[in-house]
């Protein structure tokens, strides 16, 4: 990472990221100043813990939306893999096997999505709408309405404890590890360029020799695998493997990604913005809850923010691009 001359820095910044960062600062500042109990170790630690699964799910979702696809089945894969994990553990399968098996199961579920979308050419919105219902249904068939809550101690401890000596919950660690990996792949490897090309102009990507179908299918498999990891984290955090876990989480995840500046039209958006959006929305939900605002009303605020942000973005993007073009000219003249 190079942070060269200030001009270079400003040129590299995305307008959206700046806006989000400002919003985060304002929100957190408001929280610190006006909402007692916001800036406590416990509260911040719980914000991170509650966001553990969503944080994981936004990673593959970002990549999928960049290539003009979408995956509505993420929450259902989470639930089904949670059930699978619970069943494996209940059958006394040692963790060293159960964990990779669960992740593989998630990958398989994602592969099914990928096959239908990339190789059969069906629209991903409808395919994942169908698998969203189907996977959760399979979860109910496996486990009915019951739950498995007898888990090995290592799992329950992982779900409850923090990193030794700090207030950082262990459940956010998978995200902390995977997030930089995803960001590096997206921004600094040829694969990332291929993803942006595929989203920016699928035909041009195809005609440039990019294996579009394989790439898309791989993304879905990756999505399934990450959902499985999120499923394990969820099971650990709630000490509970159940078929109705994470009901409705997919809409939250998609909202975060869209708020983070990823365009539904594809080809644009960075993980930095998505991370900022995650922080912003988690903080807002937390502040509202601290002010006794209920779940649906919280959703309303977030819906308003999503729409307002896009309206704002549409009407002031041109201004910022002008500044950027000026900066780019100044640089190349040098």
């Amino acid at each position, binding site marked *: 990472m190079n942070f060269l001359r200030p001009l270079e820095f400003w040129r590299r910044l995305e307008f959206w990221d700046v806006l989000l960062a400002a919003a985060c600062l304002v929100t957190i500042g408001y929280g610190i100043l006006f909402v007692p109990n916001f800036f406590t170790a416990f509260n911040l630690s719980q914000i991170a813990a509650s966001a553990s699964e969503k944080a994981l799910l936004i990673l593959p979702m970002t990549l999928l939306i960049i290539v003009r696809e979408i995956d509505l089945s993420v929450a259902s894969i989470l639930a089904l893999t949670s059930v699978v994990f619970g069943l494996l553990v209940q059958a006394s399968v040692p963790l060293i096997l159960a964990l990779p098996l669960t992740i593989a199961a998630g990958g398989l579920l994602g592969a099914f999505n990928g096959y*239908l979308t990339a190789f059969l*050419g*069906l*629209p991903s*919105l*409808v*395919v994942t*709408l*169908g*698998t*969203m*219902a*189907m996977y959760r*249904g*399979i979860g*109910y*068939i496996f486990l*009915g309405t019951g739950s498995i809550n007898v888990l090995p101690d290592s799992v329950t401890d992982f779900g409850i404890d923090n990193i030794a000596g700090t207030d950082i919950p262990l459940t956010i660690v998978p995200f902390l590890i995977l997030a930089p990996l995803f960001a590096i792949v997206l921004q*600094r*490897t*040829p694969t*990332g*360029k291929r993803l*942006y*090309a595929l989203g*920016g*102009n699928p*035909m*041009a*990507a*195809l*005609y*440039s*020799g*990019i*294996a579009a179908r394989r790439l898309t299918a791989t993304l879905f498999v990756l999505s399934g695998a990450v959902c499985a990891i999120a499923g394990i984290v969820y099971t650990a955090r709630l000490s509970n493997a159940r078929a109705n876990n994470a009901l*409705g989480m997919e*809409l939250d995840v998609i*909202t975060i990604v869209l708020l983070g500046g990823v365009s*539904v*039209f594809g*080809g*644009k958006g960075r993980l930095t913005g998505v991370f900022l959006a995650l922080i912003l929305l988690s903080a807002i939900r937390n502040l509202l809850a601290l002010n006794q605002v*209920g*779940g*649906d*009303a919280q*959703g*309303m*605020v977030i*819906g*308003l923010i*999503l*729409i307002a942000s*896009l*309206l704002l973005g*549409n009407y002031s993007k041109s201004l910022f691009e002008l500044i950027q073009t000026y900066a*780019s000219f100044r*640089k*190349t003249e040098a």
Partner: protein
Amino acid sequence: MRRSGKVERARLFDRRNSIGRSILFQPSHGPVEHLQEIAPIGLRNAVKSFGRTVVLKEVSFELRQGEVLALLGENGAGKSTCVKLLAGVHTPTLGSVVVDGMPADFQSPADASKAGVAVMHQHPGLFPDLSIAENIFIGHMPTTGPGFIDAGRMREEARRVLDTVGLNVPPETRLGELRTSEQQLVEIARALSLKARVLIMDEPTAALSQREVERLFHVVGELRKQGVAMMFVGHRMDEIFRIADRIAVLRDGSLVGVEPAAALSRPAAIKMMVGRELSSLYPERTASRGPVGLAVRGLVLQAGGPSIDLIVRKGEIVGLGGLVGSGRTEIARVLFGVDRPVSGEILIDGIPRKIHSPREAMDAGIAYVSEDRMGQSLVMDFSILDNAALTVLAKAAPRGFYRPQSAIELVGGELQRMKLRFSGYEQPVKQLSGGNQQKVVIAKWLATKPRIFILDEPTQGIDVNTKAEIHAMIADLAAQGMAIILISSELPELLGMCDRIIVLREGEKTAEFTREEATQELILEAATSERDSSGHAEHDRIDAAPAFTLANILKRREFGLFAAMAAVILPVALINPRIFSAANLTAVSMDVALLMVAALGQMLVLITRNIDLSVASIIGLAAYLSASALSAHPAIGPIGGLFIACSVGIAAGLINGALVTFGRIPAIVVTLGTLSIYRGLNSLWAAGDQVSADEVPISWLNMTGTKLAGVPLIVVVTLLILLTASYLLNNTGIGRELFATGSNPDGAELVGIPQRRRILLAFALAGLLAGICGALWASRYATVDARVATGFELTIIAASVVGGVAIRGGAGTLFGVALGALTLLVIKNGLTLVRVDPLWLQGVYGLVILAAIGIDALVTRRARAGNN
């Protein structure tokens, strides 16, 4: 300067006043004309720029009644822009369009249409999902009464105008089933049907056979007698000189001159177009013949089609000529691995290679510069460097990490070689001119160090100077031993560049000429069909018209749904005959009615290529607000409650629609947000409370439950709504325009359909229907709280998808949607009655959705294969 106002608008419509004061109207060159009549339309000092690129520089000319003005110019000279200005698609940056001598302000194609201008577009604004007749008359359908389509008259007039252009196909045929040339004829028919006083033809003959061209010219002759002012844009000299009275020549965005056709000779015209002697556009080449680089043997593109052989030697430039759709690009795509041939062999340097993907083609040393620069060669948002390095990404990342420096090393040389004019590697490629963009594309491919280079229309839409540079570059590559295939529609280019020219016609190789032998006439002759295009091909189509054969019925989606329902009902009836009991039928029918109303609204939005995720929240909000209003003021009665629910629904729908159309936010994002907003509003209003059954008047509850002859009122109401909607969708102009908007949004733009208003209408109606559904829901289930209908949106969308509404827009039937809703609920009912765990139902729904779209895809694929 644009001057518009009510006065000018009034003048636009005053067609009768065409004879008036004469204008001294001076084109920049050519004789001064004293006009007895005012020209119906023209450009006056029109300047047009897109961003920093100036495309037209102070162009002035006029069209005259009963005359054809031909617009001549090289690719990129600005002809299309002139057409778009006159058609109302663009507005001039400076200067104006002049109608009847006064400046006119065309804000949209609809304005141009009203002023009496009809346009045959080069890339037609046609709607594959609509019928031919609808395509012809969209935007100006013959009506009876307030907006209702007069189907009989439309069919009659469609048949008449189709006869005029010589297309012998039933007007009810779906446009998507026609071939390219036939679709072009429909475009022509559409322009003619407007009975305009100004007709602008933009490359109308590109895809037509000789016979069809003759037909068109005959029509032009008739129109001339009727005094229609016409403009003809093309670049085939023969056609131009035959048809034109005057010829206007554009070069690099400026008007070079307007001359009477009789007074202009061909070489003089070409000189005006090109600005220099023809020969200097194409470099001198010595024919060097190396060994065979590429050989194609027995290539068959389509089942039952002719087989093609060709060879290209190293150092040779072979041209592929022919009309649009003759197979040139198809061959290129097969060579590049994008398409698979039915049979054939490809040999590179004498070794047979399997080429099944572009990656394999690239590995074999083949490079392909596609004809659609913006659509297939460049990622517009990427920088120059990113685009240029797109083909060699792996090499630009030595240790797994992409380094711009490595990319520059790989492609920088090629970009320099192309003499690219740019301001920096990071410059977004969309800021470059067409010519420079093409240079980036070529550089991108040169970076792969190919041995065989296929260029498809490489100089289309590029200014003359850059063209010469590219031609020089191509000659250079050949001199270095590359085998080059050049596909071009410009005969001078083929003649000037190629060592050999192969001509294709409808997938068959009809001629091969060496450089010395070839002439424009020979090539044209070999390229155009003598076979009557209204011959056996049409007979096939008429025979295959939707007959009520068993096979056709089986293929229809509705049958599939009936089959699915039967597959559930029959076994369940055997196990538990209570499926047919009155109580069960009543309950199911009421559920189905609710779902159908909501699904109808969703369909309206889906056909315009949008989606409404907030529908369930609107239902909930409407249900709760109407119920709570009734409990507070029982006097308003069911009518009052219904009114409140509908108002809430319409308001919510309008907000959705406004955000989509005026806020320019994609529908999926808007409705994702409003889904939460409306639900939140509902929650806040309810504050944890319920409106229970005894708090509302009995008449409200009876609204849905009362039975008319054994059928619940809610079912009757729903059926009425569905029938009305079906009638309106199929028999009003507005209804058909909704389909058109989704079928081809760009085309809708060109034709002048007020897209934003239509989409707003679709959302408003969807909201209204959701409101009605909410009222019915509150009446049916009696107790409402803030969680009414949570999650229902997915069932609604599923019902539409299962019922055959295409997510991509433009297609869908009400009957299908009704059946889809019925199927889903019948399955649910059946499974419940055989005691399948209700939680498993989700899994079954998911399976049904996947099966529905899977079968859809299979059927479409087979149909497409069958048509070819």
